[in-house]
């Protein structure tokens, strides 16, 4: 386990509990793909001040190459979390935490517009 944690992840996944939220978020937010929805969830987590950490049992869903083909995601996470040595592990954690934040149960869809438009201008 320690060995695993020393190297950054090559794949990113969501927990089985978050799969449902991801699907709902993708549909409610009219995202072209679940990857985009997951990035949105990640941003929401960052914006909500979620602390660093790791998510266990996320499984494998995407290769990091698909999630971050131009490396921008990694660069941004590194910029926002200086000294982070395993940015993709953090990305995965933030995505899952964001999805958890979006979870309103079965009945209500994730409040995409509310989150999006609560965005303050700098």
């Amino acid at each position, binding site marked *: 386990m320690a060995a695993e944690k020393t190297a950054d992840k090559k794949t990113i996944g969501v927990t089985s509990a978050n799969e449902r939220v991801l699907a709902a978020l993708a549909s409610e*937010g*009219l*995202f*072209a793909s679940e990857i*985009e929805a997951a*990035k*949105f969830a*990640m*941003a*929401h987590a*960052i*914006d909500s001040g979620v602390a660093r950490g790791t998510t266990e049992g996320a499984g494998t869903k995407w290769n990091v190459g698909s999630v971050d083909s131009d*490396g*921008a995601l990694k*660069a*941004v996470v*590194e*910029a*926002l979390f200086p000294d982070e040595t395993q940015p993709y592990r953090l990305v995965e954690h933030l995505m899952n935490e964001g999805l958890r934040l979006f979870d309103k149960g079965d009945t209500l869809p994730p409040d995409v*517009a509310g*989150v*999006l*438009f609560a*965005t*303050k*201008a*700098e």
Partner: protein
Amino acid sequence: MLRIKSLHLKDFGAFKGEQAFNLPDEEGVTVFYGENMRGKTTLLNAFRFALFGKIIGRGRRPVSFHDMINWEARAEGARSFEVRLQITHAGAEYRLTRTCRPKSGTDVPAGHDDYVADYYLERGGHILPAQQAALELERILPEQIARFFLFDGELLQEYEDLLHGDTDMGPKISQAIERILGLPTLTRSRDSLKAALDRAEARVALAAQGDQKTREFGNQLQSLVEEREVLTSDLFRHEKDLEALRAKKVAIEDDMRRRERMASLLDKRDRLAGEVAALEESVQKKKDAISKAMAPAWSALIRPQLAAAVTTHRTKEAELQSAVTRAQVLHSLAEGHDEACPTCLQVVSPEAQAKIRALLPQQGQGSREADQRELAGVRRRLDALEAQLAEANPEALRLLWTDLEARKRDIYAKTAEIEEIGKQLTGDAEDELKGLRREYDSVVRQIAALEEGVKATVGKLAANATYRENIQKRLDKLAGGQMEAERRRRDLASRLHDLFKESVDLYRDQLRHRVEADASKYFRKLTTEPDYASLRINDNYGLTIVHRDGSDIPVRSAGAEHVVALSLVAALQNNAQLRGPIVIDSPFGRLDGGHRSRIVEVLPEMADQVVLLVYEEELPPARARDALKGRLRSEWSLERQSARHTELVKR
């Protein structure tokens, strides 16, 4: 000259038991005042029933006899109603009695078809035989022109429609107008002469066939005559069919008008459904656009964090940059690559070089390279941050989403409205209306097809006429015996036909001018607009208002149209061959007080005997008396006894 002496009613509509009124001998107006539901229209219908055995309700629909028996009387056991009309016509006294009772064998009548309406006509106290009675009645007041004598707001509405010239009622009303004006004698003569001419031509052909010299032409002529007969009967049949179809079209239009509200609801629903479909399409497009725009939405969420990171990275970049630069300069000076200091431009002495070298080992080669790597990393992240910031456009996203929400709300509102309309539409009404529209379209198509057929037949008849004329001309050169006499008859018939044809046109023209002049006269008396100078008549007896400056008044208010329609009816009365009383039910429509007074003033000029049915609010008795003065002959009230019992009371 037809004049009403009295009308007796028994259990007719609201008029329970036996009731009657007399109309005075003197020329003038009799006014019946009655509130709504008291039986004004029933009184008008009493005349219709007596004369034609018909009772007409709203929308020109026949009223069931079953519903015309006074309700209270029926509850008390009455099973029949009766109307008796005493009139004078051409110096003779007539008494017309029409009774409606259940058909024999009907124990409990339940509907219109369970009744029969019989009448008998007495002249000078003697009952006329049935056939003669029918002829006399037809002579006294033909049903077709009764509309000019017994009329109401609906008739005026028909005229208003006529003014627009876009209804199928036009030709029908024109015919009725020509009938009342006395044109039928002429047109019947003309048509009968045409038939006589055809017969004469056929006899010429027959005579020609009897002679060796002319047989060939005779045969040709004979077959042309036969062809003409076939074509003519085709034409006749087609025109009859056309007439029936046009009547059907009018009936359907009537029906559709009555269901107008339903139709407008259906139209509205269809329109809304169309709008919803369009909105849904635009919503889909909008969603696609949003879908594209949502890809960088995540950076919009953390825009402040990104911006803050940019600031710290810029600082870091500057720090690293200056450290790297400083190290490079020192290194270069220590190695003696440069003679002078790049900052102060003074030559660096060997002592100074040694001092620098002494400083350098603490910042080894490795540390310098680490700084360089870090600088590159900072720059890479800075580039990524700036790229994300550039893409993050929360305002554009907000606009897209707001727009989408607005459209969704619109769809929701419209769908709710569609549901609301759906509740008001019964399944039947919708199907019926759809059926009516289908039927209407089909009738319109059939009419178009028949009209084409008629046109083609008319063309063939014209060609036939040309051939016949040619052969007649050749035959004329080969004159002989019997043919000579037939030809003289034919020529005379032909000349006579031409004479009547021209006379019909001339007379119709004169009539139109007379009606136009009279209608203008009445119009000037009725209108309260001094700038309206006259009316101009068209071929269908439609009328256009002409302004004082000679220009047409294209758009008219409902009130103005009502006045024009009244002017036309008055002018027709004035020019009718048949003179009689007029019975008018609520002729004021939406006219204002000024117009109402004027109409009342003009009434005595429209006919010798006028019966006016009004309610007091539309024509207060004081105003009627003031407008009519000495020409007001008597006043009656329709007084309520109960909801279903009205008494005629002289005031």
